[in-house]
């Protein structure tokens, strides 16, 4: 679970803190352009770092500074509790005069407040238990490279390894069903936000944690009772293509994944989220508008299935404009994002602090919320 997520000077997020602590699920609402998706983009930058992207230019570009604020560093800070220990990762990037690419200003990983490593510009300082400070390893790294992906982990139980695995497993979803064809020529433990590599994600889950098929099957058969089987046959050297078999008393029908309806592809994505959470939890899932492509009578069921799954561990973060999705959250875990103009930063406020007259959806439609 994310205890704290702080972003400063990145696009519309200035001195922004996501109030995620203690919330197993939370909903971000707000007008178009209020910064909901940008929160997911900021998380995606951290996930990319954990998954090995270390060239700064591949993470943050000069255009990503808040408007007119290139002289102020961009900062990301994330805190999470894993195995009863508090992990915090901080990275700040700056753009000195005459630089075309940002460089690292500061970077550190701490566990329960004690540093695993610290960094200032190019200078990295590794903290090793039992070593005197003067003997602790210090080395220099190109200041256009993030250190987290390149520091060697000592073991699977190394705090560095535990934190990176958690961060690398964050699911950030903004599905575009028309791009998802179910084909794969590799495996991936997490999908792209568009989920166009669904086939690779499915292949990885089923080969790495085959027992999760039961979870996928259980969920999908509630949503599509005539589902019989999901097949992922080889169609060439190292390539697979998903097929879905449906059946009823009259017979059966197998169709390629790409021919499923957009909403049905979203059910499939939801099933894989539930399975991945079961296999690798506690995970964090940020789903930008999970109601997209769904029939009205399915939206509440999907949102509640996700909220329920993450209730005991991990975290489900959704954004939405949809009344039915919004109604499946409560005042305590709904947060309103707002900014006065494109030149001003996002302000986030808990819904319970706002005076809403009548029902929430009505207030949103009237534009009376903020």
């Amino acid at each position: 679970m994310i205890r704290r997520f702080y972003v400063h000077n990145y696009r519309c997020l200035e001195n922004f803190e996501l109030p995620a602590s203690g919330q197993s699920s939370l909903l971000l609402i707000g007008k178009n352009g209020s910064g909901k998706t940008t929160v997911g983009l900021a998380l995606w930058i951290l996930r990319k770092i954990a998954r090995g992207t270390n060239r700064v230019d591949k993470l943050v570009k000069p255009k990503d500074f808040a408007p007119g604020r290139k002289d102020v560093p961009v900062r990301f800070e994330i805190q999470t509790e894993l195995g009863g220990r508090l992990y915090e990762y901080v990275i700040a990037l700056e753009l000195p005069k005459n630089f075309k690419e940002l460089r690292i200003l500061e970077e550190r990983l701490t566990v329960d407040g004690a540093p695993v490593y610290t960094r200032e510009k190019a200078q990295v300082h590794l903290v090793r238990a039992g070593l005197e400070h003067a003997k602790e390893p210090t080395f220099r790294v190109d200041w256009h490279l993030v250190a987290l992906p390149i520091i060697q982990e000592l073991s699977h139980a190394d705090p560095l390894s535990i934190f990176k695995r958690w961060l690398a497993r964050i699911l950030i979803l903004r599905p575009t069903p028309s791009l998802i064809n179910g084909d794969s020529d590799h495996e991936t433990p997490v999908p792209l936000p568009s989920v166009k590599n669904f086939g690779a994600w499915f292949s990885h889950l089923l080969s790495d944690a085959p027992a999760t098929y039961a979870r996928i099957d259980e969920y999908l058969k509630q949503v599509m009772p005539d589902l019989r089987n999901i097949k992922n046959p080889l169609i060439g050297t190292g390539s697979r293509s998903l097929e879905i078999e449906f059946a009823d008393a009259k017979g059966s029908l197998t169709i390629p994944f790409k021919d499923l309806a957009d909403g049905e592809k979203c059910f499939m994505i939801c099933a894989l989220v539930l399975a991945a959470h079961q296999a690798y939890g506690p995970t964090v899932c940020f789903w930008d508008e999970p109601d997209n492509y769904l029939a009205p009578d399915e939206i509440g069921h999907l949102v509640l299935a996700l909220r329920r799954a993450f209730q005991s561990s991990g975290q489900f973060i959704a954004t939405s404009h949809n009344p039915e999705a919004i109604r499946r959250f409560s005042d305590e875990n709904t947060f309103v994002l707002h900014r006065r103009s494109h030149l001003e930063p996002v302000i986030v406020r808990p819904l319970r602090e706002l005076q809403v007259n009548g029902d929430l959806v009505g207030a949103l439609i009237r534009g009376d919320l903020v």
Partner: protein
Amino acid sequence: MSVNKNRPHIFVLPEDDANRQIVNGFLLEFQTRQIQPLEEAGGCRKVLQSFASDHIVGMEKHPNRLIILLLDFDGKGNRFDTAIAHVPEHLRDRVFILGVTNTTWGHSLLCHNASQIACLRELVQPILFP
């Protein structure tokens, strides 16, 4: 698919936003697709209007349908009597009127709810624990 209308299913019609959130909390505890919360009506009278205009025909058409009208009694004990009077006699064994007060599920309130809950329990059990 949404609720399976050929099997026992429940629609919950909350009076207001607070009751909607109570329903959410309840649904987080049970993995079922046979309960469909509906949009909050916006007042006790509107619950009864909505029931009359949107649900009576549906209940007659779908014998497996139960409906819970979740009201805010606000200490007004006669709301139960007012509400039940709006339910046609032939549907009363499938329509349940439950209420909370602003402060608590207090004793007097439970008295109101007791008979409804007793009937509801038998019908709901196979839906929640199939």
